[in-house]
């Protein structure tokens, strides 16, 4: 039963929306396939991840290292944070991550348990004044900041941990005295400070060298670098287990040889600017990558990897889910 009038007048409303969509689809959105000069690797979907070995040591020593403003670097603070570094073995760090990320333990609870387990802050006192410890927006760093806060509180400071965000946010805050300390990552901070002052200094695979270089860069900026911990948390590059078996990938070098045409890479937005991220893959491994900005080993990266939207994903080496390929 035709409704002439209805079709005529109501069609204007539907046309309105159709028009919006037609205009949108009509234009050609650039296809997102990789360049096809030679063998093209396509990601296989899967829910478990496999970390490709850093055989050419692209990732330098990203050991956890407390960095504080020199203005607050009194002895009680230094001793307390150095105690924390001393207690942070790789196993201890991974265990912390398992508790917080998998068992969903509250970071503050996990921190207090860690501090008492290693009776940190024992025999130390004399701290005074308030200290804000900056934390990056992911579980591990929040937990480390909580641990530092606990210990400093034991030593007498009024210490609080505060989530600030990426290094581009908390490093200037550190210099501007909006925050006073951070549990940082040696190699990454070294590279960040080097690029910030256009210095040619570079972190190395040996933590000792990296620390000396870091001190050289940090001291002039009013920052004091304390002892590095044994635990490290570098960027790690992972593919789905299915992709790893499909292409027989064990290390990043395998990937470079198996997929000369290059692969899609997903990770934190600052990866293209960080030498140990996208540039490093090209420089050290000659691996071409087309980058999609996602997040810091978060839901966006994980789902992109699992759904095959990206071939290679940047995750944390200390991430409990990341088992070697």
């Amino acid at each position, binding site marked *: 039963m035709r409704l002439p009038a209805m079709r005529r007048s109501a069609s204007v409303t539907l046309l309105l929306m159709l028009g919006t969509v037609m205009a949108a689809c009509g234009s050609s959105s650039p296809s997102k396939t990789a360049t096809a000069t030679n063998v093209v690797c396509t990601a296989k979907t899967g829910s478990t991840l496999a970390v490709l070995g850093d055989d050419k040591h692209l990732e330098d020593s990203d050991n956890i290292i407390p960095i504080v403003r020199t203005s607050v670097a009194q002895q009680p603070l230094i001793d307390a944070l150095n105690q924390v570094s001393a207690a942070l073995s790789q196993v201890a760090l991974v265990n912390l991550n398992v*508790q917080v*990320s*998998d*068992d*969903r*333990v*509250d970071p503050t*609870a*996990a921190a207090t*348990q860690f501090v008492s387990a290693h009776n940190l802050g024992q025999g130390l006192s004399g701290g005074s004044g308030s200290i804000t410890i900056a934390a990056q*927006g*992911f*579980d591990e760093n929040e937990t480390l900041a909580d641990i530092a806060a606990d210990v400093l509180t034991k030593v007498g400071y009024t210490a609080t941990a505060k*989530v600030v*965000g990426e290094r581009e946010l908390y490093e200037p805050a550190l210099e501007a005295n*909006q925050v006073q300390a951070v549990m940082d990552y040696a190699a990454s901070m070294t590279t960040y400070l080097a690029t910030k002052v256009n210095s040619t200094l570079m972190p190395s695979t040996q933590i000792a060298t990296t620390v000396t270089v870091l001190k050289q860069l940090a001291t002039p900026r009013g920052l004091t670098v304390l002892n590095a911990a044994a635990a490290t948390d570098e960027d790690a590059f992972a593919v789905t287990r299915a992709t790893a078996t499909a292409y027989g990938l064990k290390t990043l070098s395998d990937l470079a040889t198996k997929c000369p045409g290059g692969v899609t890479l997903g990770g934190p937005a600052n990866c293209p600017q960080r030498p140990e991220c996208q540039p490093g893959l090209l420089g050290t491994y000659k691996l071409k990558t087309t980058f999609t900005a996602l*997040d810091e080993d*978060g*839901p966006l990266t*994980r789902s992109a990897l699992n759904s095959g939207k990206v071939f290679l994903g940047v995750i944390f080496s200390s991430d409990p889910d990341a088992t070697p390929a």
Partner: protein
Amino acid sequence: MLGANCLRANSWVCGAYLSSREGQIIHFTIQHLELSGLSIGLGLVFAIPLSLLALSRRWLRASVLSLLGVIYTIPSLALFVLLQPWLGVTHATPVVVALVAYSQLLLVRNFLVGLDEVPAEVIDAARGMGYGPLALLWRVRLPLALPAIFAGLRVTTVSTIALLTVGGVINQGGLGSLLFQGFQDNFHAQVLVASVLIVVLGILADVVVVGLQWLATPWQRAGQA
């Protein structure tokens, strides 16, 4: 007991989450109430002079409403971000200022609609009996405009509480921050609890405003009785 099984399984409904993160939940809920309460309060404080200004001139009324309409069109995230450089990143001022700006269209327009709907004969009778202009506004026109004003307040209250959530993506959104953090940590229970709390706050606030209206307008009650 650390890490009960439903937490490890990351299931959506998980009582253990409530007990393990009680402090955090309470903290963000209070922050949500504070920020939205402040925004609504300030919204009212700004709406009254703005409405009186709009009342004073015919053309003013049209331009005030269309200006507020333009602000209302700007997507919330864009306005939050646009205000940050001027109002600071590390605290919630930009979000509150934006929410206050959004609330003005509904509050001012309902204020004016309310005043328009006051019956002409009531005003004529009042003036005829010796009400001066101020007394007329305060004791006759405002009370009779209350129903429409409350209607606007109800909508503003509920939508402000919901809109604050968007602040979560820039870490200034009360329960919105808990929600977004939950997403980033892929923590299902936290995401669900934060969402449900926001909706519950919205509904409770709506009930409170309806209660206030019930108290403030006895004649409406009587009319319906």
